[in-house]
């Protein structure tokens, strides 16, 4: 009974303290909102209207026809230039992402069934270069198909044709996997970064020690400290969820209850990390840097948010698998895009619970030790 009263009083104090400092609210509410919009609109792996220089050295109808196929692609914006030299200058200036060179003997060799088109890619951005490469190939494949039809094949030869079906992302847009991932980033931001900073300041100023001389026990004090940040974290999560559904049209295939449950677990993990960092460092600048380096940046780079962990070397994948963010990321993406997959989501949730427990026990132990 006394415990409850003490905790309630502490929570009330922490809530007031949080609301009073506007910079806390800015980081807790403004930044998640801003990030959701910027990420949702700004981060995209999907190339659109890539400028491509086209050098047409063959003025025959079939060459013109082939190059006009490029203009039909909605991903390419061809620019016809006079000479290879002009095209190369454009590429060097970064004005075009690729050069398509249709040589002078194109139509003659096409008739013989052996035409060659030269494609020079601007390799500084390899992802865009690859996309442009496949769009150019697609445009010329249509030209080739038209030509083959006209030439009427002598005998039909069997062939296999891939019919791809994209499960879980029918729109084939990177927004669908980036926006759910954003939930992870926001919770990490509020949970680990904000919390570690605020609690580190209290250590720095000695206000936390002042609390410890009250009858309240360390566990109660730490619990009360976390309640407001838990609320801000959940608020950020709900904002993100609303934006994902409302603004970006990301489907929610799994159950909302399960998504919220897993998110609460991860928020607890993040809060635990924040608490642990602040108790160890007890210095705002160092705490902020450690939080940035151990939780926030890895959540962006190593959790499968931007870069697929399947593609990285084994050691980096192992580091990624150690991060709680990676497991939450996999659960969130699955719940959003694939549905309730108990065989995947439940083990991840159990793991998150263990992480939360571990970080809280560790934070409490460090705090107790520091007091002695």
């Amino acid at each position, binding site marked *: 009974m006394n415990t409850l009263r003490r905790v309630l009083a502490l929570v009330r104090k922490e809530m007031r303290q949080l609301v009073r400092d506007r910079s806390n609210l800015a*980081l807790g509410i403004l930044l998640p909102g801003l*990030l959701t919009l*910027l990420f949702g609109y*700004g981060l*995209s792996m999907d*190339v659109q209207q890539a400028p491509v220089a086209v050098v047409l050295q063959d003025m025959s109808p079939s060459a013109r026809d*082939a190059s006009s196929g490029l203009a039909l692609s909605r991903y390419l914006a061809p620019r016809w230039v006079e000479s290879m030299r002009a095209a190369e200058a454009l590429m*060097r200036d970064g004005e075009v992402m690729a050069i398509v060179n249709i040589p002078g003997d194109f139509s003659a060799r096409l008739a*013989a*069934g*052996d*035409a060659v*088109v030269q*494609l020079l*890619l*601007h*390799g*500084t951005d*390899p*992802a*865009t270069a690859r996309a442009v*490469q*496949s769009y*150019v190939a697609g445009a*010329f494949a249509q030209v*080739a198909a038209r*030509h*083959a039809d006209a030439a009427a094949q002598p005998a039909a*030869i*069997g*062939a*296999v044709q*891939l*019919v*791809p*079906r994209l*499960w*879980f*992302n029918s729109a*084939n847009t990177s927004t669908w*996997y980036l926006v759910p991932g954003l939930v992870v980033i926001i919770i990490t931001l509020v949970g680990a970064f904000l919390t570690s*900073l605020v609690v580190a*300041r209290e250590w720095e100023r000695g206000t936390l020690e002042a609390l410890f001389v009250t009858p309240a026990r360390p566990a109660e004090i730490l619990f009360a400290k976390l309640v407001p940040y838990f609320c801000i974290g959940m608020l950020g999560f709900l904002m993100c969820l609303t934006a994902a559904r409302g603004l970006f049209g990301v489907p929610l295939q799994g159950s909302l209850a399960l998504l919220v449950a897993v998110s609460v677990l991860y928020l607890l993990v993040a809060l635990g990390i924040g608490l642990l960092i602040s108790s160890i*460092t007890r210095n705002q*600048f160092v705490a*902020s840097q450690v939080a940035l380096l151990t939780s926030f940046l890895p959540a962006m780079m*190593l959790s*499968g948010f*931007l*870069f*697929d962990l*399947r*593609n990285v070397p084994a050691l*980096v994948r192992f580091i990624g698998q150690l991060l709680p963010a990676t497991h939450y990321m*996999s659960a969130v993406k699955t719940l959003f*895009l*694939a*549905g309730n*997959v108990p*065989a995947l989501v439940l083990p991840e949730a159990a793991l998150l619970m263990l992480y939360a427990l571990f970080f809280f026990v560790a934070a409490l132990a460090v705090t107790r030790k520091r007091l002695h």
Partner: protein
Amino acid sequence: MIALLRRIAALVRKELLAIVTDGATRIVLVMPAIMQTLIFGYAATFDLNRVPYAVLDASRSHASAELLARIDSAGLFQRVANLDAVPQIAPWVEQGKVLLVLHIPQRLEAGLAAGETVPLQLILDARNSTTAGTAAAYLGTIVEAFNAEQRKRAGLGPASPLRIETRAWFNPQLQTRWNFVPALIAALSMLQTLMLTALSVAREREQGTFDQLLVTPLSPAEIMVGKALPPVLVGLLQATLVLLVGLWWFQIPMVGTLSTMYVGLVSFMLAGVGLGLAISALSATMQQAMFSAFVLLMPMMLLSGLATPVANMPPWLQLATYVNPLRFGIDYVRRVYLEGLGLATLWPDLVPMLLMAAVTLPLAAWLFRNRLV
């Protein structure tokens, strides 16, 4: 003049000492830059290296065995399961155990013999649509090779009358790492110098020592120079560390000259430090300064072209990137590093950074005395 330099030098020494004497800060400024470059250099890749897949081979024929042998020997695809029935597909894909399932129809061989085009169903886990798309494209080239082999056996020429010869400039293997590590030279140093600068004046204000500084013979402009130089030096040190990791560990060849590189880096650091000092001068407490710096850093990182190209953003957002020094810094560093460009081509990146420095640094000096709060 000499007295002026001596005054500034004294302040610079004091600031550098404040940074260097704290062991934790010292470590935080050097180790992470190297560690992150290593880890992110390996992690940042859109290039597939291992694709687990499953096969539902209803045909069980010579043709299907030949096709699968081609896929398995490509080195990229790892067959982790042979399925027997359609309902088995969903669990494998849903649980993320495979990236794709290839469904080979029963009449593959009969269809091929009859000269038909046989559809092969390819089920892709597109939770990451970029990976799925790349894997599908790669599988497509294997299937093309299989088809070409069929035609060759029938004594026909290549299926397509047209070939595309592709070459890539500046990054012949199209490796993501070549794009990412040079960008880190600018991004990582920005991350910490901005934080460090944002704290410098705010810390003194919070501790009350800034007023003491203001009553010394130093003018606000001199204080500004003294405050700006040390973080610029720290930033250059970090940028150099990242550059060395890129050159020596990842062996990414640098085409441009070091002098061009450092001209850009110094301008970039000045812009970043100016921004940090302005934040610092505006903040009453360290916490406010740190939060403001962070709120600013996040969008700056996002809108810089570090992870996803600026060209993929909607036009209104591309416009917003023009006030971001990091966008110009990353572009500049990448183009010096990979494309070997000189100042004659790079001035559109350099001028905005210098302009930002020319606005933010005097603004910070002015704010030292005339802060409104």
